[in-house]
């Protein structure tokens, strides 16, 4: 079962991968030795996508629980993802062939995409100037 937020997950992952490719292409053209940055970027982005999928599965399950259990379950899952993020950043700091900046950028790309796809459309939409009664 893919879950009922599957469509939005696919959309966000698709945009995230496109942004990742664009950043990687920019890094390829501007850095003298781009490989550590690009590898770390891909690593960070893929882990953030997996974390997002994990969050989706967690929340889809949490809504079927009672509120108290849902809080504890979601918070405990958050700390697992927190630990996974720590491992990614740790590995990128320790490994010479990975650039930590690339990994951090990769981990945040999905957040920018989520805010960007939902919030920035408001800037280009005239709907915010319309009154509710006119709709």
């Amino acid at each position, binding site marked *: 079962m893919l879950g*009922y*937020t599957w469509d*939005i*997950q696919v959309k966000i992952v698709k945009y995230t991968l496109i942004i990742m490719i664009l950043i990687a292409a920019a890094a390829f053209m501007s850095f003298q030795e781009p490989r550590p940055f690009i590898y770390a970027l891909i690593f960070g982005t893929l882990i953030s996508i997996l*974390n*997002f999928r994990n*969050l*989706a599965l*967690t*929340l*889809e399950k*949490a*809504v*079927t*629980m*009672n*509120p*108290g*259990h*849902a*809080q*504890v*379950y*979601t*918070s405990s899952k*958050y*700390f697992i*993802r*927190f630990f996974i*993020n*720590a491992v990614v*950043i*740790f590995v990128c*700091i*320790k490994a010479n062939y990975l650039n*930590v900046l690339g990994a*951090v950028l990769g*981990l*945040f790309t*999905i*957040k920018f995409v*989520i*805010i960007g796809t*939902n*919030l920035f*459309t*408001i800037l280009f939409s005239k709907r915010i100037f319309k009154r509710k009664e006119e709709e």
Partner: protein
Amino acid sequence: MEDANFIVKFLDWLMTFDRKALILAASAIGAGMAMIAGIGPGIGQGYAAGKGAEAVSINPKASKQATLVMLLGAAVAETSGILALVVSLILLFGNPIVTQEGAVIILVASALGAGISMIAGIGPGIGQGYAAGKGTEATGRRPEYQSNIIRAMFLGQAVAQTTGIYALIISLVLMFANPLVKLL
């Protein structure tokens, strides 16, 4: 009088240690302090999930919309935790302060300050989680206004994130471009 002053005694005792050891000790405390920010998103996401469960139980027909809003909101609420992790792990494994020139007491305080600064991440974590929870609750009640609720929620979350970013900037300045060392 000075002999009886605990602070002077403590500082004298601190100065008996090697310069590098002092900075590393301060970095260890700073790294631990920075991780306190990890609590914020934990509480926030938990709150959002609780509200999601409530919203679905009140209006089961809107469970899809409510979960979607909660997923997006909760994903953004994680950001402050990752920022704190970055600072903490830089202090532990890529410490830039150890190699810096300058008075040791300022460098020690900067390492501590860089970590303490990141505690501010608790605020955005809880605040964004709260926004996600309320957004989910609102969607459960009025699923037809889902897109408007999502926009309002993200606008609030983006504003809430700014204090976390300010904390990160201060922390990075203290670590990589410390202005205090040059003042002495």
